[in-house]
């Protein structure tokens, strides 16, 4: 089998698996930090129990997030060595900064938080979880600055047969990357809100510890509503950023073929990339795509036909992922709003509680779909307009990659299943044992 394809599949498997655990880490650490701050300020023991209960779930989730992150750092060298050699001057430093400024902080203070309940003062203990939350989110910033550089390479010169850093400030001020960062972290905070609400809903349906879970529910409801709205707003800006820097990706997201001004948006489309057209286009909203992309109904939007065939991303995958993300995003805002309005007597609304329990996986799906748009939509480039994915792989035999891919598949499947099972088990047990 083709080593490029196998390496891509392995990267996709490992990065998506990593991202099952990361968003909850980013968001839940923050929610716990707020809860524990309430405890420090009010002295009310219920907030301490809340921090401990949610903290227990956080830690089980955190463990897998950390170790699956190491895989990704290794893989640039093991599987994408030509890429690493070609752009390491810029890209490598961002990863190294992430480890030194953020990862140390997170991994060291999580220990203070876990083992320090009786060893440090209340304030220091709360500071530890704040440091974990801040470090986790800073970590995401550096990683996304690295990814953002692959999406929109800036601040480099071609020298000595590779991309060399020319302007570090330009790299860390990359507007594309900052857009991605805000969209990603707010989505993660929203996800944590829905996670907390979902587990609370499960207990409220069974009338367990109603006071405890109603209080927790309110934290979740605030997070979910505020950040569902902000995520959508950042998503819109991110779309405009795509229009500006990666027009081919935008065209693939909408399965839009012919360049035109007053570009419409279709509510229902069935793409047919083989014949460079759509089989079905239905429900056109006139000029909508032009408005969304450029705030101007008469702005021309480039269609896929404007790009040579070998430079077009896979249309169907990008298009479907984008629709899943946007559709779910809309549902999240609606449900978060309902949950927030009824937050003080939520135990009486059994139907919405039931929906919230089943909703837990969907923010994950939306975030994965979003990353699928970002990564599949960038193809065939590994660094946009600079290096093709096919030129980036390591000179390793495909048999090695196949073996490691199978090993990742098996180990990750078992660990992932165990982790989710453990979280579910402790979530159902409730706060009685913490």
């Amino acid at each position, binding site marked *: 089998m083709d080593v490029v394809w196998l390496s891509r599949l392995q990267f996709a498997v490992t990065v998506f698996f990593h991202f099952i655990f990361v968003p909850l880490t980013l968001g839940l650490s923050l929610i716990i930090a707020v809860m524990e701050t309430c405890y420090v300020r009010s002295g009310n023991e219920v907030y301490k129990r809340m921090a401990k209960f949610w903290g227990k779930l956080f830690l*089980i989730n955190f463990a897998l997030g950390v170790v699956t992150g190491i*895989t990704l750092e*290794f893989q640039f060298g093991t599987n994408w060595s*030509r890429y*690493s050699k070609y752009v*390491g*001057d810029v890209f490598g430093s961002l990863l190294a900064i992430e480890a030194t400024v953020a990862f140390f902080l997170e991994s060291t203070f999580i220990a203070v938080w*876990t083992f320090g309940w009786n060893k440090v003062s209340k304030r220091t203990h709360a500071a530890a979880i704040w440091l974990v939350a801040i470090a986790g989110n800073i970590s995401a910033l550096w990683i996304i600055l690295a990814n953002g550089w692959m999406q929109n390479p800036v601040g480099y010169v071609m020298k000595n047969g590779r991309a060399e850093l020319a302007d570090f400030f330009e790299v860390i001020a990359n507007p594309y990357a900052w857009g991605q960062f805000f969209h990603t972290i707010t989505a993660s905070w929203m996800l944590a809100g829905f996670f907390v609400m979902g587990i609370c809903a499960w207990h409220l349906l069974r009338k367990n510890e109603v006071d405890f879970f109603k209080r927790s529910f309110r934290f979740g409801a605030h997070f979910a509503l505020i950040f569902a709205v902000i995520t959508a707003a950042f998503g819109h800006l991110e779309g405009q950023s795509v229009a500006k820097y990666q027009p081919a990706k935008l065209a693939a997201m909408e399965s839009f073929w012919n360049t035109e001004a007053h570009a419409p948006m279709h509510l229902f489309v069935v793409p047919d990339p083989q014949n460079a057209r759509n089989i079905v286009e239905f429900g056109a909203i006139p000029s909508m795509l032009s408005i969304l992309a450029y705030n101007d109904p008469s702005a021309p939007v480039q269609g896929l036909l404007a790009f040579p065939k070998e430079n077009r991303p896979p249309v169907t995958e990008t298009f479907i992922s984008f629709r899943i993300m946007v559709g779910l995003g809309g549902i999240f805002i609606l449900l978060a709003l309902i949950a927030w309005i009824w937050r003080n007597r939520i135990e009486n609304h059994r139907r919405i509680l039931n929906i919230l329990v089943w909703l837990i996986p969907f923010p994950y799906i939306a975030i994965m779909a979003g990353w699928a748009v970002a990564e599949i939509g960038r193809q065939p480039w590994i660094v946009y307009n600079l290096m093709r994915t096919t030129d980036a792989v390591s000179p390793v035999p495909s048999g090695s990659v196949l073996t490691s891919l199978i090993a990742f598949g098996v180990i990750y499947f078992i*660990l992932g299943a165990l982790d989710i099972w*453990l979280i579910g088990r402790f979530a159902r047990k409730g706060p009685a044992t913490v």
Partner: protein
Amino acid sequence: MLETIWFALWALLWGIYLALDGFDLGVGILMPFLARNENERRVFHDSVGPFWDGNEVWLITAGGVTFAAFPTAYAVMFSALYAPLLILLFALILRAVALEFRSKLANPLWRKKWDGILFLSSLAPALILGVFFSNLFIGIPIDQDGVYHGNLLMLLNPYALMGGIFFLALFCLHGALWLAFKSVGQVHMRTAALAKKLWLTTLILALAYLGMTAFHTDFFHKPGAYVPLAIAVIGLLCVRFFLGADRLIEAFLSNMVMILGTAFFGFIGIFPDLVPSDISPEFSLNIHNAASSPLTLKIMFGVVICVVPIVLLYQWWVYRLFSHKITDQDIDGPDAY
């Protein structure tokens, strides 16, 4: 000049990683042989609980810095040594999960399984790191494009295997010293006694490895390499002295010095190469042909010089915070493993 400074930093980060993670790997390896009941196993777990994660980040940083400062060396090293690095990676993943999941359920079978996994996933990194660095010391078959012309078996040459066994003994000694320091009563007596035996084993293996190094490499032609070698020897002798005097934290710190000395002996030995080629010295990756641009090196130097001392400070604080001896009271506590 900048490249030379970076080589030193690169060596230092790897050295710190080995000196820190070495002891928690050692604890994982020793547990099945030394812990006789559930309470004792929990002492083993608690002794590394607050530390292993922070220790492992030094590996990530060492890897990340290799990527940033010497991207070509990172690319070639990691792709050429594909299989051992992925096994190392799988071991580290399983180890972290074993440490975190074990105590989540009281079921003895669940705990037994994770203890078994902890043992294997601590043993593998110790051996692989020894094999990995030994192969770097003697050079690996890479051509002018950095393409590896070898196979897994070639990495398991006698010198590298000796290196693996030496690292294994060294990490076991490191773990035993840490445990002796952290524990009381029975576990303390047993680990302190074992540390003395492991010390002798490590000494013999160190001499054998050193002899093979003299035969396989030209390290002894480099005057600079004698300094860290002397430091390593003094460190190892101090370990025995402090062990005999029952001053365990000093013995442990001496062993850290021993590990750092050993690491620097090897790194100064290959300097200025990062990945020597044993096909032809022209194909070797060195600090000049593998380094990043001066701008990247300068910026990363600034970052490392500002941030790493802070990291050392807060990690020091955390080590102090959790430096107490583990008693039965700690094990019964709500936050214990």
